[in-house]
C-alpha cells in the first residue's frame, strides 16, 4: 500500500524524462532505457516531494489527495509523453547498431561480478543490520519524515525551532518523499520505504554514470568508471545509509549528464533544457549545498549556451531551463526564508564575522589538512580510489581532443565553483571545522564523487581502443629469410 504513491511518482518521472527525448537515437538502447529510468525515478521522487509539501502547507495532505496528486502528476507526464514523443524521436532504425566488442563485454562483466556484486551484497547486509539507516538517517531525515507523515499539524514539528539539535531548516526532498508513502499507508512507519528510496537513488547514481559513458563513449570506459566509483569505501557506506547525500549526488550527476546529452545533439530540445533546470533545482530541495549548486549550475548553463551559439542559442534554451528550475527554487526560497526557522549558524552570523573566518590563515590551513586527511582515507589500505584512478589514467591516457570539450569545461567549472563554495561555507561556519563529530568532508566527497568521475572520464581514452588487436605486420618471406640467415651467421 505504502508504495502506490512511490511507484506512481517514479513512473511519472520516467515518462517526463522520456518525453524530453534525452536519449533519442543513442545506442546501445538498453543503456538509453536504463538512463531514462534512472533519471526519471529521481525526478519523479523530487517533484512528488514538492507536491506533498504543498499539500501539507495547504492542509490537503490526506490519503485521497496524495493519491490524486500523484495520479495527476502521472497523467500530466503521460500527456507530455504522448504529445512530444512521436515528433522528437527519429525512427530507431536510422541509428547504426553499435557493436560492443567481446573484450569490452568481458571487462564490463568482470567489473560487475568483482566490484558491483560485492558492493550490492555488502549494502544489503548493512541495511539488514541497520534498518533505520546511519546516524543522520534516523536523527535527521527519517525523524523529520515521521513528523511530516504525522496526523493533523504534526508536520510542523519537522520545522520546529525546538528541534534545534537536528537541523529543522534543512530542505525536505527525501523526508517528504518518504513521509508521503508513510502517510498514505495510514501512519505505518515501515522501514521498507526509506530503504527503498535510498536504494533507488543509489542504484540510479551508479546506472547514470555507467549509461552516460556507455552511450557517449564506450562500454569499456563505463566499466572503468564504475571500478573507480566503487573503490571509495565512504561512498559505499553512504549508498545504503538512507542519507540525503546520495540523492544530492544524484541531482548533481543527473543535471550535468543531461547537459552532456543535450549538447551532443545538433538541436538541443527545450524539454531537455527544462529537465536540466528542474534537476538542478531539485538539488536545492534536497540539502543546503544544493542551493549553491542550483545557482552555480544555472549561471554556468547560460554561459555555456552563449559560448556555444551566442544570443540565439541563449534565448532558445535558457528560458526553458529557468522555467524548469524556478517553480522548485521558489518553493525552496519560501521554505528557507519564511517557513524554516533560522537555526543555521552559518547564515545567522554577521557578514563581518564570516569574512574573518574565511580569510583566517589558521582556518585555511586546518581546512587543507582536513581535506588531505579525508581524501586520502577513503580507500581500503592500499586500495585507495585515487590510486585506482591514477592507474586507469596511466593505462588509458587523456584524449588529445575530447568530444564535447565545451561541456566538459562547463562540468569542471560547475564542480570547481561548487567545491569552492563548500570550502568557503566550511571556513565560515563556526561549528564545522575541527569538530570531530561533524563530517562535512566525508559527505562532500560522496556528493561530488560521481559527477567528478563522469566529467573526468569524458576526457580519457577508451579502453576499447586497447582491446582491439594491434595490426600484425605481415613480413614478406624474403625479409624473414634474411633475418634467419643473419641470426645463423657467426658473430
Amino acid at each position: 500500500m505504502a508504495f502506490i504513491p512511490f511507484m506512481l511518482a517514479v513512473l511519472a518521472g520516467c515518462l517526463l524524462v522520456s518525453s524530453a527525448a534525452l536519449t533519442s537515437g543513442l545506442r546501445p538502447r538498453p543503456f538509453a532505457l536504463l538512463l531514462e529510468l534512472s533519471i526519471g525515478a529521481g525526478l519523479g521522487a523530487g517533484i512528488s516531494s514538492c507536491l506533498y509539501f504543498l499539500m501539507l502547507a495547504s492542509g490537503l495532505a490526506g490519503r485521497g489527495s496524495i493519491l490524486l496528486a500523484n495520479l495527476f502528476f502521472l497523467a500530466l507526464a503521460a500527456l507530455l509523453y504522448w504529445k512530444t514523443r512521436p515528433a522528437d524521436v527519429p525512427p530507431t532504425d536510422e541509428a547504426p547498431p553499435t557493436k560492443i566488442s567481446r573484450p569490452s563485454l568481458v571487462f564490463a562483466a568482470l567489473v560487475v561480478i568483482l566490484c558491483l556484486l560485492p558492493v550490492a551484497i555488502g549494502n544489503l547486509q548493512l541495511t539488514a543490520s541497520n534498518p533505520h539507516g546511519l546516524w543522520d538517517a534516523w536523527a535527521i531525515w527519517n525523524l523529520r519524515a515521521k513528523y511530516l507523515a504525522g496526523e493533523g499539524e504534526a508536520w510542523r514539528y519537522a520545522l520546529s525551532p525546538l528541534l534545534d539539535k537536528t537541523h529543522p531548516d534543512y530542505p525536505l526532498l527525501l523526508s517528504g518523499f518518504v513521509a508521503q508513502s508513510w502517510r498514505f499507508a495510514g501512519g505505518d512507519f515501515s522501514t521498507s520505504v526509506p530503504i527503498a528510496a535510498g536504494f533507488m537513488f543509489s542504484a540510479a547514481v551508479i546506472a547514470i554514470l555507467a549509461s552516460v559513458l556507455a552511450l557517449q563513449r564506450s562500454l569499456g570506459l563505463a566499466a572503468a568508471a564504475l571500478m573507480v566509483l566503487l573503490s571509495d569505501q565512504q561512498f559505499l557506506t553512504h549508498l545504503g545509509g538512507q542519507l540525503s547525500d546520495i540523492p544530492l549526488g544524484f541531482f548533481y550527476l543527473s543535471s550535468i549528464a543531461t547537459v552532456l546529452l543535450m549538447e551532443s545533439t545538433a538541436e538541443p530540445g527545450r524539454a531537455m533544457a527544462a529537465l536540466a533546470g528542474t534537476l538542478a533545482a531539485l538539488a536545492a530541495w534536497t540539502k543546503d549545498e544544493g542551493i549553491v549548486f542550483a545557482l552555480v549550475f544555472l549561471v554556468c548553463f547560460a554561459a555555456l549556451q552563449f559560448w556555444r551559439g551566442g544570443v540565439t542559442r541563449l534565448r532558445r534554451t535558457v528560458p526553458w531551463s529557468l522555467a524548469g528550475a524556478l517553480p522548485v527554487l521558489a518553493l525552496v526560497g519560501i521554505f528557507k526564508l519564511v517557513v524554516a526557522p533560522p537555526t543555521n549558524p552559518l547564515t545567522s552570523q554577521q557578514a563581518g564575522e564570516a569574512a574573518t573566518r574565511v580569510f583566517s590563515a589558521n582556518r585555511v590551513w586546518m581546512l587543507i589538512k582536513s581535506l588531505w586527511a579525508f581524501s586520502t582515507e577513503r580507500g581500503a589500505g592500499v586500495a585507495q580510489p585515487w590510486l585506482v584512478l591514477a592507474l586507469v589514467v596511466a593505462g588509458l591516457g587523456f584524449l588529445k581532443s575530447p568530444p564535447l570539450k565545451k561541456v566538459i569545461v562547463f562540468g569542471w567549472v560547475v564542480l570547481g565553483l561548487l567545491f569552492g563554495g563548500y570550502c568557503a561555507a566550511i571556513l565560515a561556519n563556526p561549528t564545522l571545522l575541527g569538530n570531530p563529530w561533524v563530517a562535512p568532508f566525508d559527505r562532500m566527497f560522496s556528493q561530488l564523487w560521481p559527477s567528478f568521475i563522469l566529467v573526468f572520464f569524458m576526457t580519457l581514452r577508451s579502453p576499447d581502443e586497447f582491446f582491439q588487436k594491434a595490426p600484425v605486420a605481415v613480413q614478406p618471406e624474403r625479409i624473414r629469410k634474411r633475418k634467419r640467415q643473419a641470426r645463423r651467421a657467426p658473430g
Partner: protein
Amino acid sequence: MNARTARMHAWLCLAAAMGLATWAALTFLEFSTVNARESPDPWAIARQVERFAPLRSELPPNSIVEYYTDIPYSRDSGGVAAFFGACYALAPHLLVYQPKTIKPELVVGSFLKRPDLVQLEQEQGLVLVKNYGRGLMLFRRKGN
C-alpha cells in the same frame, strides 16, 4: 611506444586497477559482514523503537513531551544517541531536551539506574504517571 606496447601497458594498468578495485569491494563486503555479525544497529535504534512503542501509543496525538534522563548529554556517554533515538522512536510526538521557551506538561524519563521517585517529585516536580519498565517512565509536571 608502439601499438603493441601501448596495448600491453593499458592492459596491465587496467588489470592492476581492477585488482585494487576488487580488493576495495571485497574489503567493504567483509566490513559489512563483520558489522552485521558483531555490531548490528550500534545505536540500538530498533530496540529504542520497540521500547518506546507502548508509551508512544498512549500519548495524546501530536504531543510535545520533555526528555529527562540520568545519562549525560554527550557523544562519548551515548547520551546524544539515546536522546535522538528516543526522538525517532517517539515521533511524530515531539521530544525536547531542556527547552528554553516552553515547559511541557508531560515528561518522558529514560533511566539507566532506578530513579528516586520521591526525590524527583520534590526536586523536579515530576509525578510518576506510569512506569513502562526497562527504565522508561512517564511523568506529569506538578503545578500544571
